[in-house]
């Protein structure tokens, strides 16, 4: 016979009271955008909810303690700003939140919670990393604050792309060629590490960071044929599409990565961060100021 849930041994419960707890940040509507961006970067969930019980738990994996709260997530999908894609919706559900000290909270208080996952079983348990008291802040304001934080993250990503790239330009993909492995490439490739390459010819529109490239010239850009488990953020290029592109010299890759492909006259994009929407040119200009 299977063991019914009620007979589950208590030893399976997670301990949340024995060690020092990392502190959750307290945000306000006037906190700098960077503080929200930091909270987003550390969290996998962002949602509004109301504290409904202190020192209680809805998860059999997390024992009720002085570090646990039960939070009722707002029954409105518009106030769930971030949640993993494969999960059932949090909307209108009670979840367990692990916090620094449950007694610092009052039942009935609404918050915007930033949190990451701890356990999933019959219920959900999350660890809070930042909180924003939501009593006097409406959904529109919250959305604006989070949008600004996301915008700041994208700005930062574009700045990084410009810094690491040999050349940055807007361009239109004219053709794509699949690179067929030659015997030479096969011999050089390490096991499981052999990369399947494609080559795009891109006509340069406007240059933002120049190398020895010129406007309206055509450049050969190498990119991975497909995303892999290890490189899930491989860039995607398709004929006829226009992008903001940050390229590096193909010769800057290791010999294993190049796998015997001649590097003369070739450039490479490695991650999806190197191939951005053409509208991100505004961010390039902002970054260069």
């Amino acid at each position, binding site marked *: 016979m299977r063991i019914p849930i009620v007979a589950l041994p208590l030893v399976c419960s997670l301990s949340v009271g024995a060690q020092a707890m990392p502190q959750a940040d307290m945000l306000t509507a006037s906190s700098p955008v960077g503080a929200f961006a930091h909270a987003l970067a550390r969290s996998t969930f962002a949602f509004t909810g109301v504290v409904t019980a202190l020192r209680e738990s809805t998860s059999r994996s997390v024992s009720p303690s002085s570090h646990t709260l039960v939070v009722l997530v707002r029954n409105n999908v518009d106030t769930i700003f971030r949640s993993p894609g494969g999960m*059932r919706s949090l909307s209108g559900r009670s979840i367990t939140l692990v916090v620094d000290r449950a007694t610092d909270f009052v039942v009935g208080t609404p918050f915007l919670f930033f949190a990451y*996952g701890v356990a999933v079983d019959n219920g959900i348990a999350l660890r809070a990393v930042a909180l924003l008291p939501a009593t006097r802040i409406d959904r529109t304001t919250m959305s604006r604050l989070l949008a600004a934080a996301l915008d700041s993250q994208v700005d930062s990503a574009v700045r990084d792309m410009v810094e690491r790239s040999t050349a940055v330009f807007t361009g239109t993909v004219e053709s794509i060629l699949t690179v067929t492995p030659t015997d030479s490439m096969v011999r050089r490739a390490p096991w*499981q590490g052999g990369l399947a390459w494609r080559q795009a010819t891109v006509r340069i529109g406007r240059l933002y960071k120049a190398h020895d490239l010129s406007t309206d010239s055509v450049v050969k850009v190498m990119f991975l044929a497909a995303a892999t488990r290890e490189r899930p953020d491989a860039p995607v290029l398709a004929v006829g599409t226009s992008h903001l592109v940050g390229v590096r010299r193909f010769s800057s890759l290791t010999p294993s990565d190049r796998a015997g492909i001649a590097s003369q006259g070739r450039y490479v994009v490695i991650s999806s961060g190197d191939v951005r929407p053409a509208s991100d040119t505004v961010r390039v200009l902002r970054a260069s100021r």
Partner: protein
Amino acid sequence: MSDPVLIKTRVRRYLYGGILCVAVVLIPAWVFSRPELWHGFKIDIVDIVPWEWSADVTVHPEPTIAISPSAPDTIAVSAYLIGRNPASEESFCSSEFGGVLMSFDGGANWTLRCPLPKPADSKVLGDLSLDFTGDGKLLLASYITKNSSDVLIPRVQTIVGWAEYETTASTERSVPSPSVKVDQPFVVASPNRVSQAFVVGSQQQLTTCGGWGLAWWWTTNGSAGPPNCVSTREGTAVMAVRFALASDGRLYGLFFAVRPDETNANPGPADLVLVRGKLGEDASAVASFDDLHDDKLLDPWIGADDPCAVPDSELGSRLRNCAKVPKDAWQQRGPDGCLPNMGFQVRNPNQFALAIDPAQSQTVYYAYADRTPGLAEGETSSAVDSITLRLARWSDVGGVQQTQELLVVHNALNPAIAVTASGRIGLAYQQWIGDEWRTHMLISDENHAKWANVPLTDPSPASEPGYNCGFSSPYLGDYIDLAVVDNTFYGTFSANNNPARNPNARYLRDKSMLGTSVAYTIDPFFFKIETGASRISIVMATIGSRLTSLFERLRWWMRPPPILPPVRGPRIVQGQRPG
């Protein structure tokens, strides 16, 4: 016809006839439809993706299992991307932890937890290997890929560390530092030692060890310093290793040493090598694996005059010489990234498994896959096999090495072996027949003379789950896993999660969503097979499990709706940190 006596007689006749029909036809049909009843095994198969994750469409191949020797009801199962989906950059765990599925009641219920430490700047925990030490600590080894945008070749670094699954209190715990570049690291922990474990890796990019070879760490605190190194065999390459540790400290390793003089495109010659060392109290006692050499073992597969048959004095005993094995097939991928042949699976010389006889640590059972046709005794033809799975026994009891082939399975791979306390051998594998995958478990009797075939899945076409070869190759992954406690097998495999393909499986996720609002994908399954159970207990367990799941479903639907309390003002002043 209106005679009440006649009517009563006829009703009674129909009633008795119905009861007789049920007793004679339906009950035997039900019994024979359930392999656990006619084999005398008690079987539980579970899709362990949690209920909350019912909308998940992520592919989860390459599962492994670990069971705590100090608390056998504590089980951990890892698989790719559980709790973290880098494709969408949406994950459940924080960026510093990876997920693992855990059960604390022998596999009845499962929880997704986030105890696997990983450097915050890494992207993926891959090829996870888990094992519990004698005192119940969970050790992991994994390759990681860094977030750095200029790293292309994956598996750049390997980490070793403790997974503190019993606490959520602090993120301020030790995160392991990357050690060396190895692929498919393998962890074994001694069940009768405390907080000690052994980690092995092997890869061609073993720069720390100066080239091809095995690297290993002996850790007592979860941290891993510089590895010990041993060169495998001159001029050969090793893709992966499997290790097994006996309670008396005998430590075996099994690997294919692939000869490099063939092209990389087609099956090439490889030696199947068994190494053995003795585990002492500290690292210095395991400095070599030189217990075995092949000068006393005659390979029954080749003639004595074959150049491959010449014994050498290099590391380990060759159990097969010049076997044909599939080599790395990445360059055979089509434009869609799919691997050729056999349901997208044939690609690497990493198909083997190893288990020590619990009654005699000088005897091991091993399985491996090759492409050598027509050599097994009594075999009619394997010429059409893409890959052939073989199970054999090796022993050097009495000082003479002997091997004996026990089973041949055509077009099968991902072997996993375990041996029960009573001497039954369990072999789990995945087989490709007629463009369909199926997962099986073969269980021998105590004399290894008869084998019971327990299907773990029904046939499943490889085309059914939405399959992105480039992202998720290979289809099912490079391995499944099997463990044993006394006379009970515990295993895990990955397969198509279509409920119609898994009629005997329980689902933790909402299976009514599959194929409708959620696409089929590859899920990790757990299975448990008790070989010593009585048939009465099996019938009772079957009925009990049905009632339990019915009760659980009723409880779910009848739970009270949440009550929203009246809103009161916050006690926390804006701008003030609580606590």
